[in-house]
């Protein structure tokens, strides 16, 4: 591999005449001539991939980065083109974006909102990134989204599941392809009712921070609407590693379903502990005790080993989907890296293509033009069936997968099986739904 | 009326009577030695004087005021300075800084936020400290790191730090403990020198008879927590009770 790296600025400045030119005070670093932040003027355009590279989500971040690299390769006409071939829009030519070669810079969010903002800022200020994308938690997504709004660049969220990202913290410059906690609840509840009946008593363990709360709220609302009762909802500290003290009290209740509103390491540990304590062997009220993990991450589920078997949850996407888009993506990702992509990789890849496509359709990198092109956009062929980017809150609406831990996996990647593809109509909600109320998009900010 | 009046002080540690009805009077401008065998209660008595221990009963009056219940730094501010068995100095600081600290302590009291004054501008304090250092022949070592000095120099420095406070009473806690004969003699010379140059009241707690008889004006002999006798060195030397209780047959 021998590609040299030229930043936008590099191309611009190496050609610049020696001498001093003083620019006007501007917001962030746009040159005086440009209409918006980091307007690409050379032969290339720089995207900023901001993913967790250290900390507990580093593997998920690494998978996101692989997807981004693949997307860049495809955008620049390399590889087999992946989902560009199945994408309903044909604006992308494989010649970069608007004819400019796609370059990228990477940063480490450390899964901390402070560090994530610092690294996003550095990509905008130093490397001239025109768009920031990535992340593996909602706190980071909301923080970086806010930054991009102020800086005047587009933010294409990575993995973020909290209702707030496109709810009370939504921003005009930010877009989310990933599904959210409300959708998880809306998709999961009917399946749960079908499998476990309408007369169930649920006990929630919830990670004690905003994402956990929104998920708990969503699942409680969705299951109660179908006749379930909620016995108790207990918050667990984020730093908790041993959940035994939170699980034993369940034995004293008549709850017959345990809902784990945990993600990542928390989920692995709480699920492992719950199974250890024999919860799944319990019979309560004459019913088999069940455990539910509303948001599944295949990467993390591996850490829980056999304990995931038979456990229901929801996911944004899974590699076993048989539609043409998913197959094309799995094929190019799998061929390049040797294993199937995660849902985080999928959403990041799709977000990159969607951004590039919007730029092509808008004919401009101007964030406001891009935002306009994305708003209300209907597309298909990116793995989730017909999808709609809602203008009112910049949330994608698409089918949601209900999955179950597979009983007889054939390989280390084959952990989940898709039980049901919940149609989009069932997970839609009004933009002013109470769980999403409180914020406003504001207006698009081009920076300059 | 002495400058230090100890009356009826008792101190028990559990079942042990460390001090039993101690009476002591230190007169101004004298050197008063408190001697006694190990375990006689010398250190306990000293600790009661400086505020580290509080007697169970009795009174300790210094310069007309009670020291009981006061913290060590308050007692120092009343005018009692203390020299330790092993020299206690500020090892990380230079010799001059070591002497400046007690100067500031006298001028500014136990605490003052003099964060925006500059040491270099404190001409008066520096002069006072330098005079003191010259007095103990350490002026040329003023910039030395005090931890790296010899033990004799540390002792000298500690004396200087105490003397620069112009204490009304200087307490010396076995200043020659563990020293070789030559060092002991040097210390005696130093103390004599100090005594010759100024009016000073000293109370010395000491084990070594040689030191005591070279310096003291009056001696109190302590045995098993109780004062046996108080007298001049000449009289103490020949006192049969003292010979019996303290000096034993070796004397």
């Amino acid at each position: 591999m021998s590609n040299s790296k030229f930043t936008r600025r590099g191309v611009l400045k190496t050609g610049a005449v020696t001498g001093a030119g003083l620019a006007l005070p501007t917001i962030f670093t746009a040159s005086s001539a440009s209409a918006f932040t980091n307007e690409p003027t050379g032969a290339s355009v720089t995207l900023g991939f901001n993913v967790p590279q250290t900390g507990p989500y580093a593997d998920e971040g690494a998978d996101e980065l692989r997807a981004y690299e693949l997307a860049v390769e495809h955008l620049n006409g390399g590889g087999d083109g992946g989902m560009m071939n199945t994408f309903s829009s044909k604006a992308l030519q494989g010649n970069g974006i608007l004819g400019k070669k796609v370059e990228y810079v990477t940063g480490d969010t450390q899964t901390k909102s402070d560090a994530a903002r610092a690294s996003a800022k550095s990509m905008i200020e130093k490397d001239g990134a025109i768009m920031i994308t990535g992340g593996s938690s909602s706190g980071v997504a909301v923080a970086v989204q806010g930054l991009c709004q102020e800086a005047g660049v587009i933010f294409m969220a990575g993995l973020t599941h909290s209702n707030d990202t496109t709810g009370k913290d939504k921003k005009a410059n930010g877009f989310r392809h990933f599904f959210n906690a409300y959708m998880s609840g809306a998709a999961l509840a009917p399946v749960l009712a079908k499998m476990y009946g309408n007369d169930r008593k649920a006990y929630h363990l919830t990670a004690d921070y905003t994402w956990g709360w929104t998920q708990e709220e969503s699942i409680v609302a969705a299951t109660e609407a179908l006749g379930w009762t909620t016995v108790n909802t207990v918050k667990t500290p984020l730093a908790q590693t041993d959940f035994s003290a939170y699980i034993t009290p369940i034995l004293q209740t008549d709850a017959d379903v345990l809902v784990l509103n945990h993600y990542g390491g928390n989920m692995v540990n709480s699920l492992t502990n719950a199974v250890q304590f024999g919860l799944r062997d319990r019979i309560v009220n004459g019913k088999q005790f069940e455990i539910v993990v509303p948001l599944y991450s295949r990467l993390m589920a591996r850490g829980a080993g056999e304990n995931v078997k038979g456990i229901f949850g929801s996911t944004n996407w899974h590699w076993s989907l048989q539609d043409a888009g998913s197959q094309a993506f799995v094929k190019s990702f799998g061929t390049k890296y040797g294993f199937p992509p995660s849902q985080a990789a999928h959403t990041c890849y799709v977000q990159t293509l969607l951004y590039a496509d919007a730029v092509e359709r808008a004919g401009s990198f101007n964030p406001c033009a891009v935002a306009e092109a994305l708003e209300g956009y209907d597309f298909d062929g990116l793995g989730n069936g017909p999808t709609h980017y809602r203008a009112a809150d910049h949330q994608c609406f698409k089918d949601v997968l209900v999955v179950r831990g597979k009983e007889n996996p054939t390989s280390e990647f084959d952990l989940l099986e898709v039980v049901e593809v919940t149609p989009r109509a069932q997970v839609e909600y009004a933009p002013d739904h109470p769980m999403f109320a409180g914020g406003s998009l504001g207006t698009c900010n081009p920076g300059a | 009326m002495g400058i230090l009046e100890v009356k009826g002080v008792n101190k028990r540690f559990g079942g042990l009577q460390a001090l039993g009805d101690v009476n002591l009077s230190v007169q101004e401008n004298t050197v008063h030695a408190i001697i006694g065998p190990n375990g006689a209660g010398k250190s306990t008595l000293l600790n009661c004087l400086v505020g580290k221990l509080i007697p169970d009963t009795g009174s300790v009056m210094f310069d007309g005021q009670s020291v009981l219940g006061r913290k060590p730094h308050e007692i120092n501010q009343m005018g009692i300075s203390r020299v330790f068995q092993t020299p206690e100095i500020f090892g990380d600081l230079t010799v001059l800084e070591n002497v400046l600290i007690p100067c500031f302590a006298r001028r500014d009291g136990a605490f003052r936020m003099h964060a925006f004054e500059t040491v270099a501008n404190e001409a008066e304090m520096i002069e006072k400290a330098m005079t003191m250092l010259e007095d103990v022949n350490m002026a040329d070592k003023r910039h030395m790191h005090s931890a790296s000095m010899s033990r004799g120099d540390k002792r000298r420095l500690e004396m200087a730090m105490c003397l620069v406070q112009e204490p009304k009473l200087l307490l010396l806690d076995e200043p020659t403990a563990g020293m070789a004969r030559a060092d002991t003699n040097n210390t005696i010379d130093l103390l004599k020198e100090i005594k010759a140059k100024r009016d000073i009241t000293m109370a010395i707690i000491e084990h070594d008879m040689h030191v005591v008889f070279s310096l003291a004006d009056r001696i109190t002999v302590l045995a098993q927590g109780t004062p046996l006798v108080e007298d001049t060195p000449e009289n103490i030397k020949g006192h049969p009770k003292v010979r019996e209780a303290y000096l034993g047959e070796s004397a």
Partner: protein
Amino acid sequence: MDAILLQILNGLDKGSAYALIALGLTLIFGTLGVVNFAHGALFMIGAFCAVTLSKFLTLSFETVDPTKTDFLGQPLKVKTPYVEAWFGPDFGGALIDWAVPLSILFAIPVMITVGFVMERGLIKHFYKRPHADQILVTFGLAIVLQEIIKQVYGANPIPTPAPDAFRGSFDFGVLLGFDPSVIIYPYWRLVYFLFAAVIIGAVFAFLQFTTFGMVVRAGMADRETVGLLGINIDRRFTIMFGIAAAVAGLAGVMYTPINSPNYHMGMDFLVLSFVVVVVGGMGSLPGAVAAGFLLGILESFASMNEIKSLIPGIDQIIIYLVAIVILLTRPRGLMGRKGVMED
């Protein structure tokens, strides 16, 4: 009542891990006078000994199964572990199943070696250095160790289950006259507690009843004097470091079935174990063990809904709160000696 009983068990279990790590920390601090921020990393390395052994036992060869397909639609390569092929599926399978207990045999020499290398190669040069330097260098070492593990094994947790025989739960309640399945406790957690008790007992017995232990204890009390007696205390201290590393490592090995190990588990435990050591009193072995169990049990109680509803968020802060209260009422922790690490 039954709820409280269960929380006591939870607390003892959590306390076992705290106590084992704190015990090693205190051994190192007490004997060598070194504040070892890399001790959590030793716990983590122990856990990854178990991961390594189970990876080793499941080393596999691939055979193609044409009836199934993999994610790219090609014929599936089925993996069969060598041990199963060599020793037959029964014995081979059992070996794999018992990977975690077997790891103890593997971890002891590994951890002692790691301990020796650490002490001889790095720590011994820091005996005379300030505690701040010791903290910095061992913290740097902890980062390096955990980053190496991360680069080899990735950041995600790796499941290392207990043997099948220990996977169920033990129904205590029936013995005590409760209804069935009200007071149940997982076998492996009971094993962990017993294991911790045995290790703690062994360390104390070793220090109490062997000449070696006596010398070490004397050295903890007064290093210089023991050195003056012509005893080669340095070599004994190296061995103690090895033992402390082994204790931390074994605590890590046995912990793996309770929670899947990941590269940052050492750091997760580090701060808590320091709190435990200090609450116990710097340099006191019984203090470290007592504080470990005490904080474990209090943490479990604080997690109960009844208590959380009284004081919201109490489970988030209980350990620190207890540490503050104990340190303010007992200046040197539960059993600390005067003058240790006070300046």
